[in-house]
């Protein structure tokens, strides 16, 4: 007899904004910006800390797409966990090292368009966003360097 899974994934309480069927998320602690496609966004929204993985699957089958299976949810949770968007440390790793083809094979009937996708980018500081010198370039002010630091030897760090 298998033990009943009790993990109840909970999403991070962070700023988010819907952009058509995608979701943009910004984490002020890490300055990371994320873009979730509709599959990943639906799973993330369902992670309220009250639902188990099986509950999330049933919820999404009823509300979003009846073809979503638990494997899809697990792979999505793994991606969300890697992106730092879930609080629960006990979420099992699933599919993190799988190739896209293997993920598609495991997900089964879900079309390629519905594969969960989480894109993550670091949002820049003002100095990093500006025209700046790369490391080891001559400088005489911190604002000239991409790193924001002009070393004592007048080379960008």
């Amino acid at each position, binding site marked *: 007899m298998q033990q009943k899974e009790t993990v109840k994934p909970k999403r991070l309480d962070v700023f988010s904004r819907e952009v058509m069927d995608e979701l943009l998320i910004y984490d002020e602690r890490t300055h990371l910006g994320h*873009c979730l*496609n509709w599959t990943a966004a639906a799973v993330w929204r369902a992670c309220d800390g009250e639902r188990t993985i099986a509950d999330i699957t049933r919820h999404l089958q009823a509300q979003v797409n009846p073809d979503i299976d638990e494997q899809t949810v697990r792979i999505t949770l793994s991606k969300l966990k890697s992106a730092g968007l879930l609080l629960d440390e006990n979420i099992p790793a699933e599919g993190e090292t799988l190739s896209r083809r293997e993920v598609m094979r495991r997900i089964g009937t879900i079309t390629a368009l519905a594969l969960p996708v989480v*894109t993550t980018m670091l949002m*820049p500081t003002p100095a990093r966003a500006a025209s700046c010198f790369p490391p080891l370039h001559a400088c*005489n002010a911190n604002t000239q360097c991409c790193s924001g630091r002009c070393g004592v030897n007048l080379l960008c760090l």
Partner: protein
Amino acid sequence: MEKLYRLVQADGFSFKSFGLTFGVRTNHPLAIDMIRAHLPPGSSVLKVQAVDRLYSFFLPNSARQVWARPFHLLYGNAQTLAKTHSDAELLEVFETDLNLHIATATERLFFIHAGVVAWKGKAIVIPGSSYTGKSTLVGEFLRQGATYYSDEFAVFDPRGYVHPFPKPLGIRMGADQKQTRVSPAQYGCAVGMKPIRLGLILFTRYLPSARWRPKVISPGKAALNLLQHSFSVRERPEAAFAFADKVTRRTRVLVGPRGEAKDLVRVVCQEADLEKG
């Protein structure tokens, strides 16, 4: 600041730029015209009691100090920004710091690090970090007849229109890739004077063996890519994300490496001409 008052007391002026006020003072009255030449486009000189940021220039008096090479100094408020033997370098640091402060602090407008040209009445915005070939691409668009808006900042207003910021182009030349200021007049092109609608966003970088075969990306990914070049995303994330959403939701966004600039420019201009026609 007390020390600064003793150092720098000759002449000065205040000006407004993109809704912010700045003060400049210097110990050398002849430097005023030189400093004014490095103000952002559209700045207006006016008298104010208090400013958002104060710049203090200390230039050595060469008639009195012939036995040494004293430093040129620049302060932003009480912070030392530059210490150099060259007034050209001092002015470059001043311009960089001033532009960075405007791009970060102004609340009504959104600044993106990008080159901007106008083609058939719409803006083509080319966001990019340093050394990605942005200015080279802008220069090639100008040779083909585009109107110059900027090679440094795409300035968006709340409607999503792009405003001109036509400072001289900074083209990297030579083995050391040092930036040379090139006036738009050298390209024989028109310079933008009014805000225009956005037509296209190009995310690209030069790779010697690449061919221009761009992909269209989703609005969400386009917004995230745009914010990677924004100056105020960490300071005002909600406003920045709202702006990026608005801009990318209804604009074509292309992503991909490019080879020679003229190949990309030819394709983009032809497609824009076909759309307009």
